[in-house]
Protein backbone atom coordinates (compact mmCIF):
# COMPACT_ATOMS: atom_id res chain seq x y z
CA UNK A 1 0.00 0.00 0.00
CA UNK A 2 1.62 3.25 -1.12
CA UNK A 3 1.95 5.80 1.62
CA UNK A 4 4.19 8.74 2.44
CA UNK A 5 4.90 9.54 6.07
CA UNK A 6 8.27 11.23 6.59
CA UNK A 7 7.46 12.23 10.15
CA UNK A 8 6.98 8.63 11.30
CA UNK A 9 10.03 7.45 9.37
CA UNK A 10 12.21 10.02 11.12
CA UNK A 11 10.65 9.05 14.44
CA UNK A 12 11.50 5.38 13.84
CA UNK A 13 15.02 6.45 12.84
CA UNK A 14 15.29 8.32 16.17
CA UNK A 15 14.10 5.27 18.13
CA UNK A 16 16.59 3.04 16.33
CA UNK A 17 19.46 5.40 17.15
CA UNK A 18 18.33 5.72 20.76
CA UNK A 19 18.11 1.94 21.18
CA UNK A 20 21.56 1.51 19.61
CA UNK A 21 23.01 4.04 22.06
CA UNK A 22 21.28 2.28 24.96
CA UNK A 23 22.66 -1.08 23.82
CA UNK A 24 26.20 0.25 23.68
CA UNK A 25 25.70 2.05 27.01
CA UNK A 26 24.55 -1.13 28.77
CA UNK A 27 27.73 -2.95 27.76
CA UNK A 28 29.85 -0.31 29.51
CA UNK A 29 27.92 -0.33 32.82
CA UNK A 30 30.44 -1.65 35.37
CA UNK A 31 29.39 -4.70 37.35
CA UNK A 32 26.08 -5.20 35.56
CA UNK A 33 24.46 -8.60 36.00
CA UNK A 34 25.32 -10.51 32.76
CA UNK A 35 21.96 -12.29 32.58
CA UNK A 36 20.18 -8.96 32.87
CA UNK A 37 22.46 -7.52 30.21
CA UNK A 38 21.77 -10.36 27.78
CA UNK A 39 18.01 -10.13 28.33
CA UNK A 40 18.13 -6.34 27.84
CA UNK A 41 20.29 -6.52 24.71
CA UNK A 42 18.16 -9.28 23.18
CA UNK A 43 14.94 -7.38 23.90
CA UNK A 44 16.31 -4.18 22.38
CA UNK A 45 17.58 -6.02 19.29
CA UNK A 46 14.11 -7.58 18.86
CA UNK A 47 12.43 -4.17 19.18
CA UNK A 48 14.84 -2.66 16.63
CA UNK A 49 14.31 -5.54 14.20
CA UNK A 50 10.56 -5.21 14.70
CA UNK A 51 10.62 -1.47 13.98
CA UNK A 52 12.54 -2.05 10.75
CA UNK A 53 10.12 -4.82 9.69
CA UNK A 54 6.93 -2.99 10.61
CA UNK A 55 7.71 0.52 9.38
CA UNK A 56 10.59 0.40 6.91
CA UNK A 57 9.55 -2.89 5.29
CA UNK A 58 5.89 -1.77 5.38
CA UNK A 59 4.53 -4.85 7.15
CA UNK A 60 2.16 -2.56 9.01
CA UNK A 61 0.32 -1.90 5.77
CA UNK A 62 0.24 -5.51 4.55
CA UNK A 63 -2.57 -8.04 4.98
CA UNK A 64 -2.58 -10.34 8.00
CA UNK A 65 -2.05 -13.28 5.60
CA UNK A 66 1.29 -11.88 4.44
CA UNK A 67 2.26 -10.91 7.98
CA UNK A 68 1.74 -14.47 9.27
CA UNK A 69 3.47 -15.96 6.24
CA UNK A 70 6.56 -13.99 7.24
CA UNK A 71 6.30 -14.21 11.00
CA UNK A 72 5.85 -17.98 11.43
CA UNK A 73 9.03 -19.05 9.55
CA UNK A 74 10.96 -16.22 11.25
CA UNK A 75 9.98 -17.57 14.67
CA UNK A 76 11.25 -21.11 14.05
CA UNK A 77 14.97 -20.32 14.59
CA UNK A 78 14.03 -18.36 17.72
CA UNK A 79 12.15 -21.39 19.08
CA UNK A 80 15.14 -23.58 18.22
CA UNK A 81 17.46 -21.15 20.05
CA UNK A 82 15.26 -21.39 23.16
CA UNK A 83 15.41 -25.21 22.96
CA UNK A 84 19.22 -25.03 22.76
CA UNK A 85 19.43 -22.70 25.76
CA UNK A 86 17.17 -25.00 27.79
CA UNK A 87 19.25 -28.01 26.80
CA UNK A 88 22.45 -26.21 27.84
CA UNK A 89 20.85 -25.20 31.14
CA UNK A 90 19.82 -28.82 31.75
CA UNK A 91 23.39 -29.99 31.14
CA UNK A 92 24.62 -27.41 33.65
CA UNK A 93 22.20 -28.55 36.31
CA UNK A 94 22.78 -32.30 35.90
Amino acid at each position, binding site marked *: *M*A*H*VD*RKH*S*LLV*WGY*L*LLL*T*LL*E*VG*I*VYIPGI*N*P*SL*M*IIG*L*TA*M*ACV*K*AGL*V*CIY*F*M*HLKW*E*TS*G*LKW*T*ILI*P*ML*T*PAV*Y*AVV*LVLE*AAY*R*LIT
Partner: protein
Amino acid sequence: MREVWNRMSAHAEDRVVRPEEWPDEEIYGNATGGKIGMWVFLLSDALMFAGFLLAYAILRGGQAAYIAAEDVSVVYWRCNEAAIERGIDCVLEPDFGIPFTAALTFLLICSSVTMVFAYYACIEKNHKGMVKYLWLTAFGGFLFLGGQYYEYFGFGIPGHGLYPQGLIFGQSFFATTFYMVTSFHGAHVFSGVTYIVVMAIRAMMGKYDDGNQNHIEILGLFWHFVDLIWIIVFTFIYLIPSPGDHPSFPML
Protein backbone atom coordinates in the same frame (compact mmCIF):
# COMPACT_ATOMS: atom_id res chain seq x y z
CA MET B 1 -5.73 -21.12 -9.19
CA ARG B 2 -7.78 -18.77 -11.35
CA GLU B 3 -6.62 -15.87 -9.18
CA VAL B 4 -2.97 -16.81 -9.62
CA TRP B 5 -3.45 -17.14 -13.36
CA ASN B 6 -5.13 -13.74 -13.48
CA ARG B 7 -2.22 -12.22 -11.59
CA MET B 8 0.34 -13.76 -13.92
CA SER B 9 -1.61 -12.67 -16.98
CA ALA B 10 -1.89 -9.14 -15.67
CA HIS B 11 1.86 -9.08 -15.08
CA ALA B 12 2.70 -10.52 -18.49
CA GLU B 13 0.51 -8.09 -20.35
CA ASP B 14 1.56 -4.97 -18.54
CA ARG B 15 4.93 -4.92 -16.80
CA VAL B 16 4.37 -1.44 -15.39
CA VAL B 17 1.14 -2.35 -13.62
CA ARG B 18 0.92 -0.29 -10.45
CA PRO B 19 0.64 -2.09 -7.09
CA GLU B 20 -2.72 -0.41 -6.54
CA GLU B 21 -3.97 -1.94 -9.77
CA TRP B 22 -2.76 -5.43 -8.84
CA PRO B 23 -5.79 -7.73 -8.48
CA ASP B 24 -6.89 -7.86 -4.89
CA GLU B 25 -6.55 -11.30 -3.38
CA GLU B 26 -7.95 -12.75 -0.15
CA ILE B 27 -4.69 -13.63 1.62
CA TYR B 28 -2.03 -11.31 0.20
CA GLY B 29 -4.17 -8.32 -0.75
CA ASN B 30 -2.67 -6.48 -3.69
CA ALA B 31 0.92 -7.39 -2.87
CA THR B 32 2.65 -7.77 -6.23
CA GLY B 33 4.29 -10.99 -7.36
CA GLY B 34 7.68 -9.31 -7.14
CA LYS B 35 7.11 -8.25 -3.56
CA ILE B 36 5.95 -11.71 -2.46
CA GLY B 37 8.90 -13.24 -4.32
CA MET B 38 11.34 -10.94 -2.50
CA TRP B 39 9.77 -11.81 0.86
CA VAL B 40 10.11 -15.54 0.15
CA PHE B 41 13.76 -15.00 -0.79
CA LEU B 42 14.37 -12.95 2.36
CA LEU B 43 12.79 -15.64 4.52
CA SER B 44 15.11 -18.31 3.13
CA ASP B 45 18.02 -15.91 3.59
CA ALA B 46 16.99 -15.21 7.19
CA LEU B 47 16.97 -18.94 7.95
CA MET B 48 20.48 -19.21 6.54
CA PHE B 49 21.65 -16.38 8.79
CA ALA B 50 19.88 -18.04 11.70
CA GLY B 51 21.83 -21.24 11.03
CA PHE B 52 25.15 -19.37 11.09
CA LEU B 53 24.21 -17.47 14.24
CA LEU B 54 23.10 -20.61 16.05
CA ALA B 55 26.33 -22.36 15.08
CA TYR B 56 28.22 -19.34 16.40
CA ALA B 57 26.24 -19.36 19.66
CA ILE B 58 26.74 -23.09 20.28
CA LEU B 59 30.48 -23.00 19.58
CA ARG B 60 31.04 -19.70 21.38
CA GLY B 61 29.08 -20.72 24.46
CA GLY B 62 31.10 -23.88 24.82
CA GLN B 63 34.51 -22.24 25.08
CA ALA B 64 36.10 -20.16 27.79
CA ALA B 65 38.46 -18.44 25.38
CA TYR B 66 38.09 -17.18 21.86
CA ILE B 67 41.25 -19.04 21.02
CA ALA B 68 43.78 -21.09 22.95
CA ALA B 69 46.53 -18.87 24.33
CA GLU B 70 49.33 -21.02 22.94
CA ASP B 71 47.95 -20.68 19.41
CA VAL B 72 48.28 -16.93 19.38
CA SER B 73 51.46 -15.09 18.67
CA VAL B 74 50.10 -11.59 18.73
CA VAL B 75 50.47 -8.78 21.20
CA TYR B 76 47.34 -6.78 20.61
CA TRP B 77 44.77 -9.00 22.28
CA ARG B 78 43.61 -8.19 25.76
CA CYS B 79 43.80 -10.54 28.69
CA ASN B 80 40.44 -11.05 30.32
CA GLU B 81 40.76 -10.10 33.99
CA ALA B 82 37.45 -11.69 34.98
CA ALA B 83 38.60 -15.01 33.60
CA ILE B 84 41.79 -14.85 35.63
CA GLU B 85 39.72 -14.24 38.76
CA ARG B 86 37.85 -17.45 37.98
CA GLY B 87 41.07 -19.40 37.83
CA ILE B 88 41.03 -19.70 34.04
CA ASP B 89 44.31 -18.92 32.29
CA CYS B 90 44.59 -15.62 30.49
CA VAL B 91 41.67 -15.55 28.06
CA LEU B 92 42.77 -13.75 24.97
CA GLU B 93 40.12 -11.75 23.21
CA PRO B 94 40.31 -9.48 20.18
CA ASP B 95 39.50 -5.86 20.70
CA PHE B 96 36.35 -5.44 18.66
CA GLY B 97 36.11 -1.71 19.04
CA ILE B 98 32.41 -1.56 19.87
CA PRO B 99 32.15 2.23 19.22
CA PHE B 100 33.43 1.66 15.69
CA THR B 101 30.91 -1.08 14.90
CA ALA B 102 28.19 1.03 16.58
CA ALA B 103 29.10 3.75 14.07
CA LEU B 104 28.70 1.21 11.26
CA THR B 105 25.27 0.34 12.69
CA PHE B 106 24.40 4.05 12.70
CA LEU B 107 25.48 4.24 9.06
CA LEU B 108 23.22 1.35 8.01
CA ILE B 109 20.25 2.77 9.93
CA CYS B 110 20.76 6.13 8.18
CA SER B 111 20.97 4.40 4.80
CA SER B 112 17.69 2.64 5.57
CA VAL B 113 16.06 6.04 6.11
CA THR B 114 17.45 7.40 2.84
CA MET B 115 16.03 4.32 1.12
CA VAL B 116 12.60 5.03 2.62
CA PHE B 117 12.90 8.62 1.38
CA ALA B 118 13.78 7.37 -2.12
CA TYR B 119 10.57 5.30 -2.00
CA TYR B 120 8.56 8.37 -0.92
CA ALA B 121 10.15 10.48 -3.66
CA CYS B 122 9.20 7.81 -6.22
CA ILE B 123 5.55 7.88 -5.10
CA GLU B 124 5.56 11.69 -5.32
CA LYS B 125 7.09 11.48 -8.84
CA ASN B 126 10.04 13.49 -7.57
CA HIS B 127 12.73 12.33 -10.01
CA LYS B 128 15.52 14.42 -8.51
CA GLY B 129 14.79 13.37 -4.91
CA MET B 130 14.53 9.68 -5.81
CA VAL B 131 17.88 9.68 -7.63
CA LYS B 132 19.53 11.67 -4.83
CA TYR B 133 18.33 9.36 -2.06
CA LEU B 134 19.19 6.21 -4.01
CA TRP B 135 22.78 7.41 -4.48
CA LEU B 136 22.97 8.43 -0.82
CA THR B 137 21.83 4.93 0.18
CA ALA B 138 24.44 3.34 -2.08
CA PHE B 139 27.07 5.66 -0.59
CA GLY B 140 26.08 4.57 2.94
CA GLY B 141 26.45 0.92 1.94
CA PHE B 142 29.79 1.64 0.31
CA LEU B 143 31.07 3.31 3.49
CA PHE B 144 29.90 0.32 5.51
CA LEU B 145 31.90 -2.00 3.26
CA GLY B 146 34.95 0.22 3.73
CA GLY B 147 34.42 0.05 7.49
CA GLN B 148 34.19 -3.72 7.40
CA TYR B 149 37.39 -3.95 5.35
CA TYR B 150 39.10 -1.74 7.93
CA GLU B 151 37.78 -3.93 10.75
CA TYR B 152 39.17 -7.06 9.09
CA PHE B 153 42.47 -5.79 7.70
CA GLY B 154 43.04 -2.31 9.22
CA PHE B 155 44.08 -0.75 5.88
CA GLY B 156 47.63 -1.85 6.68
CA ILE B 157 47.87 0.37 9.77
CA PRO B 158 50.02 -1.41 12.39
CA GLY B 159 47.96 -2.70 15.30
CA HIS B 160 44.68 -2.34 13.41
CA GLY B 161 42.48 -5.01 11.90
CA LEU B 162 41.32 -8.31 13.38
CA TYR B 163 43.17 -10.47 10.90
CA PRO B 164 46.61 -8.92 11.53
CA GLN B 165 45.81 -9.21 15.25
CA GLY B 166 45.56 -12.96 14.91
CA LEU B 167 41.83 -13.61 14.50
CA ILE B 168 42.41 -15.93 11.58
CA PHE B 169 39.74 -17.88 9.73
CA GLY B 170 40.08 -21.57 10.51
CA GLN B 171 42.28 -21.09 13.56
CA SER B 172 39.43 -21.25 16.07
CA PHE B 173 35.72 -21.93 16.18
CA PHE B 174 35.15 -18.33 17.08
CA ALA B 175 37.20 -16.86 14.25
CA THR B 176 35.58 -19.16 11.70
CA THR B 177 31.99 -18.49 12.74
CA PHE B 178 32.70 -14.77 13.22
CA TYR B 179 34.03 -14.38 9.68
CA MET B 180 31.27 -16.60 8.26
CA VAL B 181 28.51 -14.47 9.75
CA THR B 182 30.02 -11.02 9.21
CA SER B 183 31.38 -11.69 5.72
CA PHE B 184 28.10 -13.30 4.65
CA HIS B 185 26.41 -10.12 5.77
CA GLY B 186 29.10 -8.09 3.98
CA ALA B 187 28.34 -10.03 0.80
CA HIS B 188 24.71 -8.97 1.20
CA VAL B 189 25.76 -5.34 1.60
CA PHE B 190 27.87 -5.62 -1.55
CA SER B 191 24.94 -7.18 -3.45
CA GLY B 192 22.66 -4.48 -2.07
CA VAL B 193 24.98 -1.65 -3.14
CA THR B 194 25.24 -3.18 -6.64
CA TYR B 195 21.44 -3.54 -6.78
CA ILE B 196 20.95 0.08 -5.65
CA VAL B 197 23.49 1.42 -8.16
CA VAL B 198 21.69 -0.40 -11.00
CA MET B 199 18.34 0.95 -9.80
CA ALA B 200 19.75 4.47 -9.38
CA ILE B 201 21.00 4.41 -12.98
CA ARG B 202 17.58 3.17 -14.14
CA ALA B 203 15.96 5.92 -12.06
CA MET B 204 18.24 8.49 -13.72
CA MET B 205 17.03 7.15 -17.09
CA GLY B 206 13.48 7.96 -15.98
CA LYS B 207 12.28 4.36 -15.60
CA TYR B 208 10.41 5.10 -12.37
CA ASP B 209 9.17 8.61 -13.09
CA ASP B 210 5.57 7.45 -13.47
CA GLY B 211 5.14 7.07 -9.71
CA ASN B 212 5.13 3.28 -9.84
CA GLN B 213 7.01 2.49 -6.67
CA ASN B 214 6.90 -1.30 -6.97
CA HIS B 215 10.52 -1.85 -8.04
CA ILE B 216 11.86 0.68 -5.52
CA GLU B 217 9.81 -0.95 -2.78
CA ILE B 218 11.22 -4.39 -3.62
CA LEU B 219 14.75 -2.93 -3.59
CA GLY B 220 13.92 -1.32 -0.23
CA LEU B 221 12.83 -4.69 1.20
CA PHE B 222 16.24 -6.15 0.40
CA TRP B 223 18.14 -3.17 1.78
CA HIS B 224 16.13 -2.98 5.02
CA PHE B 225 16.65 -6.72 5.48
CA VAL B 226 20.42 -6.12 5.29
CA ASP B 227 20.00 -3.48 8.02
CA LEU B 228 17.81 -5.80 10.10
CA ILE B 229 20.36 -8.63 9.96
CA TRP B 230 23.14 -6.26 11.01
CA ILE B 231 21.06 -5.20 14.04
CA ILE B 232 20.96 -8.86 15.12
CA VAL B 233 24.63 -9.53 14.28
CA PHE B 234 25.78 -6.39 16.10
CA THR B 235 23.93 -7.40 19.26
CA PHE B 236 24.74 -11.10 19.33
CA ILE B 237 28.34 -11.04 18.14
CA TYR B 238 29.70 -7.68 19.27
CA LEU B 239 27.69 -6.71 22.33
CA ILE B 240 26.74 -9.89 24.17
CA PRO B 241 29.76 -10.80 26.30
CA SER B 242 31.64 -14.04 26.11
CA PRO B 243 31.33 -16.48 29.04
CA GLY B 244 34.83 -15.56 30.21
CA ASP B 245 33.86 -11.90 30.52
CA HIS B 246 31.88 -12.30 33.71
CA PRO B 247 32.75 -14.31 36.80
CA SER B 248 29.10 -15.24 37.29
CA PHE B 249 28.69 -16.70 33.81
CA PRO B 250 28.11 -20.44 33.81
CA MET B 251 30.45 -22.41 31.61
CA LEU B 252 29.16 -25.35 29.63
